[in-house]
């Protein structure tokens, strides 16, 4: 096990949604704040090889969370940027890290890397079993390339890079992606309450199922992987639960004490019908298990969104 306490740790995307929680989890492990470096994209363009060499100098561990993504419309309209930026950031950072003798490199992948028709729940062995959903092709392939690079660097250089496949996250904090389903439901309800309206309308049928992980649990998974996981195989990070969007909306409405009607606009697309990760490998390999109960996580998320909402309006 790698003791993190005295290490210099670079967390790219460290001021983002997941990053903020990863930084907190590192502090909770006793890593002093001055040893946690979080470059911002305004000052550090990680697509640039020279910048990557500079930021990785003297670093022991890298947790690479920086990336660009967005909602469906963003993926439709910006596939080239999504491909290039995500690939170039990851590939240059890992190359620079290797040159500078970084000990450990953890990359954030995504559930969208799985083939559209992979058997459920998604298991790591099936990552290559078919084409990914076309909408997310650019994003998924760019992310999967970081896995390929990690494996190739381990084979050639003995470089310790690992790749985690993240399911959808939720929790307190500002997400990079607008329109994440849980945030969206909470905000519709907040708006309905403010406007005194007796119903909210959500996209699709509500039938698709997803698994969600509380962002603080996800952050813990990254820290555990940095400490304890050093193998080439990718690892799913999920909660193991499966919930339909409809059930989720019901739970959120109950927690928010909203008694109005939830309507479904079935003229709007649903997306993939089911998307669930098998979280078994993370538990076997480095003892990670998502521990936050859904309702507890939701309560914390709702509280954060309420505060945001009040300060906005």
């Amino acid at each position, binding site marked *: 096990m790698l003791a993190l306490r005295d290490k210099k740790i670079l967390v790219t995307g460290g001021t983002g949604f997941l990053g903020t929680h990863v930084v907190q989890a590192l502090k909770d492990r006793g890593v002093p704040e001055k040893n946690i470096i979080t470059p911002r994209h305004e000052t550090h363009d990680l697509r640039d090889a020279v910048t990557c060499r500079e930021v990785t100098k003297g670093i022991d561990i890298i947790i690479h969370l920086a990336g660009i993504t967005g909602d469906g419309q963003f993926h439709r309209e910006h596939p*080239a940027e999504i491909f290039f930026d995500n690939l170039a950031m990851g590939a240059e950072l890992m190359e620079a890290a290797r040159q500078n003798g970084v000990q450990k490199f953890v990359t954030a992948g995504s559930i969208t890397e799985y083939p559209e028709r992979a058997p459920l729940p998604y298991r790591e062995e099936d990552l290559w079993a078919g084409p990914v959903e076309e909408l997310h092709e650019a994003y998924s392939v760019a992310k999967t390339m970081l896995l390929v690079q990690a494996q190739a660097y381990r*084979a050639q250089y003995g470089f310790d890079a690992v790749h985690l496949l993240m399911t959808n996250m939720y929790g307190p904090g500002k997400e990079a992606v607008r329109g994440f389903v849980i945030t969206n439901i909470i905000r519709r309800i907040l708006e309905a309450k403010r406007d005194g309206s007796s119903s909210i309308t959500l996209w699709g049928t509500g039938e698709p199922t997803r698994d969600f992980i509380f962002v603080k649990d996800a952050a813990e998974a990254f820290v555990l992987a940095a400490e304890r996981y050093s193998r080439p195989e990718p690892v799913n990070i999920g909660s193991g639960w499966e919930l339909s969007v409809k059930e989720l909306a019901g739970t959120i409405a109950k927690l928010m004490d909203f008694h109005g009607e939830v309507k479904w606009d079935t003229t709007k697309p649903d997306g993939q019908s089911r998307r669930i990760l098998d979280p078994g490998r993370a538990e076997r390999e480095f003892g990670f298990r998502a521990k936050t109960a859904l309702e507890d996580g939701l309560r914390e998320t709702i509280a954060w969104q309420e505060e945001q909402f009040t300060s906005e309006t």
Partner: protein
Amino acid sequence: MMDLKGKKILVTGGAGFLGTHIIAALRARGVSEKNTIIPRLEECDLRKAEDCARAVQGMDVVIHLAAKVGGIGFNQEKPGELFYDNIMMGARLLEAARQAKVEKLVLLGTICAYPKFTRVPFREEELWNGYPEETNAPYGLAKKALLTAARAYRKQYGTNAIFLLPVNLYGPGDNFNPASSHVIPALIRKFAEAKQSGAPSVLAWGTGRATREFLYAGDAAEAVVRAAERYDKSEPVNIGAGREISIKNLAELIAKLMDYNGEIRWDATKPDGQPRRMLDTTRAEKEFGFKAKTDFEKGLKKTTEWYLANVQHAI
């Protein structure tokens, strides 16, 4: 159809094996020497954004052949370099070509991008249905990612980038360096050396049972040039000869053509690589009228003659 005459054409890897044949094919189309530009490795590192920007400046067409490649041994030793160099060269060049508003970009993939267990003949639709043969996966996947990149650039920016998947090439000018050569030049060299030294047998890699398809480099060059002229879609296209041969039969054929009468022994401790390889070539014919025309034995004969005249006698 794009008339290439009068276009400024950048051919990365233009001094290489396939590149030399492409330059010849362009010349036959009437493209002048001053309009075919080959970036030199010493002054242009395509993994760097600045170098790519400089290379594509003022170009109408970019044909990207530059690649870091090798045989199975090299692939096993250097997967990291193969991944990084190939993906970054392609991604940087595509981005630079987009910024410079290049009219047409031809990216070359590789048959190594296909899944290890693909039904023969390989159809383009099967490209994502599995993991490639392990020894060449980092190389094959780095190249395959450029297909995704090309599609993404076409969608977002309308960049006219196409992606071709050539099969294993052979022909005059091939790489005969034993550290990095592919099977045909490797066998030619072994037989030539065995003949010279009077060795009673030659040891070849693997079991000989794997099958491969080989395309004459001159035919491949014609395919690339035709695609540059006539193909403007986001779907990848196989470039092959549509003919499969086992490595064992190949070795025997080369031995016969080179008049080597010793024994061919097989070192089964060495990997075979992917079990079978042959492309379905109907899309190339349908979309831009390409069909390989060089007879395999004639092509091999030309290759062995080239080796004897240019490599062996030069040593």
